[in-house]
């Protein structure tokens, strides 16, 4: 067990390094970041100054060395400065992160609270009305493009009905209810797809468990239906949704680029997108590092959860 987890941890670190290196390399193909500093309306830049900036940014060295320098600074906690405004990247991140984290958590709770119970009910009443409602809900959730759904809910609830704000996170000093209103639309749009995934996973896991011998035994013993469903079956069907929930959180934290753009949400996704267009490689690399690390961490947590819950993995040290 310990060696299994240790191995997973080492792989997670290797994964993060490889992922950042790939994006680092590709981002250097986008052209010289120095060109962002030369505005067409300015006085231009002298050859010497151009070289000097290149030296300062380390652009004269080979790519691998540049990457090594970057990761060396990151390990020491120095994420560099943004290209245009020369602000420390880490400050910018700390400023934008709360908005993204808040939205992710809200959507995650929403998805879990809707998806899991609906999945259980859908399996229990298989072929019945609830099952059809649940499956339709899931079918739509997985097929609706998030950016379009975002635009549609803005159209209906902000433009036509004028019930909810159409975007941004709202003023800091407003009351809790007032600020909560800003979360409603984005978290529904973000959460629906997740809820659909939960529903499908929970449903199929439940169907499998409900079909097994020990459930039949429990029923034959005369255990009440709700006890069979929630105590006997649900606990054993929990592994797939549980692993999914860790990955879903990671997905929410970095999959919301599109949502943040649609709702003008002042979070990390939009920061990262802007950094791509501005060729701001310090910010971009940090964003990729953050997302990749987060993803590897959650995958690792999912593995640990798996190993703790499923004794087969704990004993043999391998996933089936």
């Amino acid at each position, binding site marked *: 067990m310990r060696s299994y987890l240790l191995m997973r941890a080492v792989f997670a670190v290797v994964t993060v390094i490889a992922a950042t290196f790939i994006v680092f390399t590709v981002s250097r193909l986008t052209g010289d970041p120095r060109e962002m500093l030369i505005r067409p309306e300015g006085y231009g830049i002298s050859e010497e100054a151009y070289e000097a900036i290149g030296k300062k940014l380390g652009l004269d060295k080979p790519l691998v060395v540049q990457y090594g320098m970057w990761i060396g600074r990151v390990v020491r906690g120095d994420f560099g400065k943004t290209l245009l405004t020369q602000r420390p990247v880490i400050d910018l991140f700390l400023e934008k992160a709360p908005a993204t984290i808040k939205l992710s958590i809200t959507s995650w709770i929403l998805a879990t609270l809707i998806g899991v119970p609906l999945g259980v009910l859908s399996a229990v009443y298989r072929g019945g009305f609830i099952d059809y409602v649940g499956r339709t809900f899931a079918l739509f959730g997985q097929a609706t493009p998030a950016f*379009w759904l975002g635009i549609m809910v803005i159209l209906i609830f902000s433009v036509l009905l004028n019930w909810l704000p159409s975007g941004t996170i709202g003023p800091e000093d407003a009351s809790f209810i007032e600020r909560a209103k800003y979360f409603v639309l984005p978290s529904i749009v973000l959460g629906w797809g997740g809820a659909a995934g939960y529903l499908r996973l929970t449903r199929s896991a439940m169907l499998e468990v409900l079909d097994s011998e020990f459930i039949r035994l429990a029923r034959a013993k005369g255990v009440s239906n709700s006890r069979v469903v929630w105590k006997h079956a649900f606990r054993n069907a929990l592994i797939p949704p549980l692993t999914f929930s860790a990955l879903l959180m990671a997905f929410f934290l970095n999959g919301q680029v599109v949502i943040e753009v649609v709702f003008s949400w002042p979070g990390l996704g939009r920061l990262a997108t802007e950094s791509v267009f501005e060729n701001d490689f310090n910010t971009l690399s940090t964003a990729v590092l953050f997302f990749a690390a987060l993803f590897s961490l959650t*995958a690792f947590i999912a593995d640990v959860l798996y190993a703790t819950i499923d004794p087969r993995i704990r004993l043999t040290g391998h996933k089936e």
Partner: protein
Amino acid sequence: MNDARITSNISIVSYLAKIWWVLRKWPVIPIIILLTLLICSGFSEQIAPESYRKTDLRLRNAPPFWMEGGSTKRILGGDVVGRDILSRLIHGARIELIVAGISLLSGAIIGVTLGLIAGYMGGFIDELTMRLVDIWFSIPFILFALVVTIAFEPSLQVVLVLLAILAWSAFVRNIRAEVLALKGRDYVSAAKIAGASKVRIILKHILPGVFNTVMIIASLRVGQLIMAEASLSFLGAGIPAPTPAWGVMVADGRNYLDNAWWVSTFPGFAILLVVMSFNFIGDWLRDRLDPNLRQLL
């Protein structure tokens, strides 16, 4: 109520029940939707009432024909520069199918090959391939796609490559798992003893065994690819103008929500219908061919 009315009522009910039964057994509606898509993409020039790039400023943001001020000249309305939305949708069908088809096919070829090799060879090669998949999963796709598009200028080719590398990973994992199970079967051992080469065993004895899985993953994956393409187009990193990609059309209407809701609504609805149809057929195929895959996907 007389007897004739009762019998006719019963026959209507049984008729409806029969329709319901057929609809439940076969994915009729999704097939109709996808056939429409196929026909539109094949004969867009003949079907579409207008060219997809013909602008008409008098018809800018013209409403659909059933609304006040609308005309049959722009059945589903006109967009920001007066182009016919219906015609652009019909022309867009071809690009959506081409993008999804090519990227899926190349992703499937790469993914299945890697999955077969990793699963059958095992050991270091297997470990390396799986770590590669892990690394790929941990890169935020949209960001990566944006960086790549900016590095190479937005074009159809870039989108195809990006989507192909999005598609391969799902194949590798599931095919590998399948191969691991097939590898231990008696007929594979028999072939080995008979002296068949590794390549022959993989191609002749294992590949046919994973074919169902490939079909299922492919059909469940198309929808995601169309969605990814639309998201990229929406962010401005997809297929460049004037090609009428549906994602671009949604983005076009974003700033005119309060006076021309139809510009964004119809293209997005088209994406929804197509993706849903593909997903539905994928589910249906999976339930028919291999219900065990439920846990894998």
